[in-house]
């Protein structure tokens, strides 16, 4: 246990480092900040609610730099796409927060907000899960037919529509090989930012699917580019959180030490898998986060009477991070085994990359 002078509490260092490591791994792999997992976990560890948010956002800023550097090396960043979106994202978040404050003043309840955010997460989960499942089936069919399937395969036809919008200026994203109206990218940034700011959900797990299914980037490029985005928006968010008195830098440091290892592994792990594997992990994180939110909501709605509900909610919040990490490690281990011709479960070959 460490006595955090600024936060004013004692918390176990091991759990902070472990949280940083697990969320770093997940974030580096699917391109999210992971706040929806970390903030509840920090509250369980004893941090006041407002400090949990602040420590999380500050650590996300640092962790995203670590992951972005590795993704740059792997060629997963489209700078034009990322930098075009940044302005829209920050504007969108600001608009979302103001909209939230306005609707709260009108009497919008916390339950309505929670329902809205859960609705978005479930909708995204269903679309991503169904599309990825179809993509995996198509990879299996093509492989059986003797074709060499590349790193990415998506069956969504949405990008074709959005890429056909001819509003000038048109940008050419060289790495992502997209030719698209700048306004589509800016509006993706604004829309995802508004959703993030209004519902208090992270930007990453909305932006990565948006980059894949609307802009038409490959999943790897969506992940790397989104992490670049998070460096900018996270840095700005971190500054605001510090100014609001929500940050304990020593707690952030312990989490970064864990993230140092986790984000590396998660980012490098993307080079072992195909796009659909990343989309599967993203959809799992959505459904697990939603289930965790439901358990917590149920505990609150039953008047906090039943301690076993609190126990389940805590165990689920911590367990979902561990699950996602172990699944990512599984994909890497099986990818290496598959390359060496060893046995792997039947669902692996379509998800892993062969050199």
């Amino acid at each position: 246990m460490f006595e955090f002078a600024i936060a004013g509490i004692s918390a176990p260092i091991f759990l902070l480092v472990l949280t940083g490591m697990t969320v770093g791994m997940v974030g580096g792999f699917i391109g999210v900040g992971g706040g929806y997992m970390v903030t509840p976990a920090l509250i369980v560890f004893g941090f006041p609610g407002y400090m949990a948010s602040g420590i999380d956002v500050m650590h996300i800023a640092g962790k995203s730099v670590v992951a972005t550097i590795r993704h740059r090396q792997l060629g997963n960043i489209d700078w034009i796409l990322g930098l075009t979106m940044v302005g829209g994202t920050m504007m969108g978040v600001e608009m979302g927060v103001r909209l939230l404050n306005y609707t709260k003043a009108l009497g919008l309840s916390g339950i309505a907000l929670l329902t809205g955010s859960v609705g978005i997460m479930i909708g995204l989960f269903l679309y991503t899960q169904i599309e990825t499942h179809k993509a995996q089936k198509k990879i299996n069919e093509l492989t059986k037919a003797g074709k060499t399937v590349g790193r990415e395969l998506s069956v969504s036809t949405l990008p074709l529509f959005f890429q056909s919008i001819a509003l000038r200026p048109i940008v050419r994203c060289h790495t992502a090989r997209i030719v698209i109206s700048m306004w589509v990218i800016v509006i993706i940034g604004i829309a995802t930012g508004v959703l993030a700011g209004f519902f208090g959900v992270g930007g990453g797990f909305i932006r990565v699917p948006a980059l894949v299914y609307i802009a038409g980037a490959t999943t790897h490029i969506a992940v790397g580019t989104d992490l670049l985005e998070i460096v900018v928006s996270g840095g700005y968010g971190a500054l605001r959180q510090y100014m609001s008195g929500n940050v304990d830098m020593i707690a952030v440091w312990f989490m970064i030490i864990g993230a140092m290892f986790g984000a590396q592994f998660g980012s490098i792990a993307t080079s072992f898998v195909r796009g659909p594997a990343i989309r599967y992990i993203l959809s799992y994180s959505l459904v697990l986060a939603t289930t965790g939110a439901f358990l917590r909501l149920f505990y609150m709605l039953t008047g906090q009477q039943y301690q076993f509900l609190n126990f389940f909610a805590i165990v689920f919040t911590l367990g979902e991070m561990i699950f996602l990490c172990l699944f990512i490690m599984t994909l890497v281990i099986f990818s290496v085994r598959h390359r060496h011709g060893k046995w792997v479960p039947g669902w692996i070959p379509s998800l892993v990359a062969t050199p």
Partner: protein
Amino acid sequence: MNWFLNSMLAYWVVLLLFSLGAAAVIYFIWLKDSLI
């Protein structure tokens, strides 16, 4: 058995149970006494 080993859903469920078990261990070691 073959179905089980090759099933993604089965692996998902087993891994989730394992992860929840690990989280429960963490809860009992570090968190149980300090909760409100």
